[in-house]
Each structure stands twice: as structure tokens, then as C-alpha cells.
């Protein structure tokens, strides 16, 4: 453990942030309706690593629930794009939540 720099403790005396931390940094989110394709440009992520997380919103839990899929999400440069999964065999596109985090 570093003996210099920033260190933050919780009320129990445990370290919650120090020099070894890799705290998540939330950059962007969007909730995408079923069947929608679109994109957004985030100019400030240029040269930075991001991870794009996508999950369904209110996925079906009855019937053929296993056919439902979240959107596909890609990053090209500073543009984040998404498209419904409907072009895939047998699959039903669902509404999705897309969250983008910066890391390292």
C-alpha cells in the first residue's frame, strides 16, 4: 500500500479508495426502445478505454422468454452505436439499457 496520496475510509475504518483503486467512472446511458437503431458521439472518450454494458429492460419471463435479446452495442472511435437483435435467427428484440463506463 502506498504511504502517500489520497486515501478514504468508511465509518468502519475500511479503506474505500486508495492508490490501488480503479473506481468506475460513469459516462453515458440511454434506454433504447424495442427495434430502435441509433448512435451517439461522445467526443470526450477519445483516447480513453470504455466498456459498454447492455441489458434488457423488463425482459419477458413468460412464454418463450429465451428468444428475447438486448440490443447489440458497438464503439467506433468516439461513436457508440446500437441496433436491435431482430436480424438474428429466431430472436425477438427487447428494450435495452446501455451504460458506458470509463476505465484504466
Amino acid at each position, binding site marked *: 500500500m*502506498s504511504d502517500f*496520496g*489520497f486515501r*478514504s*475510509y*468508511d*465509518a468502519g475504518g475500511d479503506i*474505500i*479508495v*486508495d*492508490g*490501488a*483503486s*480503479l*473506481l*468506475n*467512472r*460513469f*459516462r453515458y*446511458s440511454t434506454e433504447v426502445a424495442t427495434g430502435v437503431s441509433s448512435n451517439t458521439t461522445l467526443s470526450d472518450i477519445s483516447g480513453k*478505454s470504455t*466498456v*459498454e*454494458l*447492455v*441489458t*434488457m*429492460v*423488463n*425482459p419477458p*419471463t413468460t412464454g418463450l*422468454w*429465451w428468444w428475447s*435479446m*438486448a440490443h*447489440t*452495442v458497438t464503439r467506433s472511435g468516439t461513436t457508440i452505436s446500437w441496433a436491435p*437483435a431482430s436480424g*438474428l*435467427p*429466431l*430472436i425477438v428484440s*427487447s428494450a*435495452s*439499457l446501455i*451504460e458506458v*463506463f*470509463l*476505465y*484504466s
Partner: protein
Amino acid sequence: MGYGLKIYNDNGVLIIDGKYRNFSEYTSGSFSPNSNAYTTVSFTATSNLPLVGLQPQELGVGGSVSLIGYTKSGSNWTGFVASSLSISNINYKVYTSDTVNPADTYGLKVYDDSSNIVFHSGKKYFDIHLVDDSVAILPPPFYTNYDITHSDISNPYYFLSPVGYWIYGYVTGPQGPIGFFRHGVQKISSTSVRVGWTRVYGGVTTSLVSAGWNPTINLIVLQ
């Protein structure tokens, strides 16, 4: 942003500033998957964006698991749906983009330029300890796995995105078995995890079927 507080880690990575929010722990618990291959877990409704990390049981004790989606009612997030055929407990942690200013009158608080709180020393934030963005496995009938070791941390939580699927069936006579599979994570040990396929539905088919969507996956190790 040329003003305000910036905190870097030992590797020079910016981890706190007044521009980007940090997701903090909202609640945690465990659940036992049911026989439907999916399980809905509720948490106290919140209007803040959620992120759920899952911690499956060890290999041989439980099956693999993946997050299918979040449940939402009106403007509130109310829970999540996970897919697994495991019979063991699965631990979870819910993190949210909480911007409410805690009543605490001590500690460090960092605000953005809209006066929303982005960091408070009284909250627990998750680390993105590792992102492996090249997780690739072969679908059924090959069923290959992808193992990842994170020897410097124990018992973290995981997030898999995107979650692909595969349908595979074959005939051994007039008909044969067919299965529907999704990507999932399975704990190998406290310091390693496996990405593989979870069978979430089974039936019968009268023809050979092998189709699906098997993208390269991001595995995020959270702590």
C-alpha cells in the same frame, strides 16, 4: 476540465473528478435460481440507474449465471432477472448512480458543475478491476469455455455483456433433443472464473438445428 479536484491512482489513472459520477453500492443479497431457468430478484425501487454484479458458486457446486435484464416500473428500477439452472445460492450487488447528497456533515464530497454529488467518502464504490474484451467461445456442440484468472483479488463480482445465445438440436431417429443456451459465468475458484454456455431450455426437434448469435464478450470483474 481545468479546475476542481482530480484524484489519480498509483498508475496515473484518473479515478475521481468533478465531471464523471461513480456508481455506489445500493444493496446486496443472494438468491437461489428456480426451475424456470430464470429468476426475478426485487430490490427497493429507485430512480437511479442500476448495475448488478453477480457472484456464482464454485464449479461443481452450482451452475453458471448471467444477467438477463432489469425490471422497471414507471421511472423506477425495481429488480433484475438472472438466467441460471444452478441450484445454489448466487450472490449479487446492486450499484446505482445515486446523486443524492448524504446528510453526513463529515468526510469528502465532490460535486459536478450542476451541483450533483459525484463522490462521497461515506459510500462504497465499485472498482472496475479488470475488463477482458476478447472473451470468445465456440457454441454447441463444441461447448468451449474461456477461463480468466484475477489472482490479485478474491471473490469479486462479475458482469457479462453482451450475452449471446445458441440453439442446438439433432436427431437420433424420428426426433432428438434440442437446447437453447446462453452465455454465463461460473466460478472456478476465488481467483478465477469461467465463461461458458448455460442451457436454459430443452425440448425435442425433428431436424438438425445449429444457429445463434455468439459475439465476442466483455467480462467485467467488479470489486
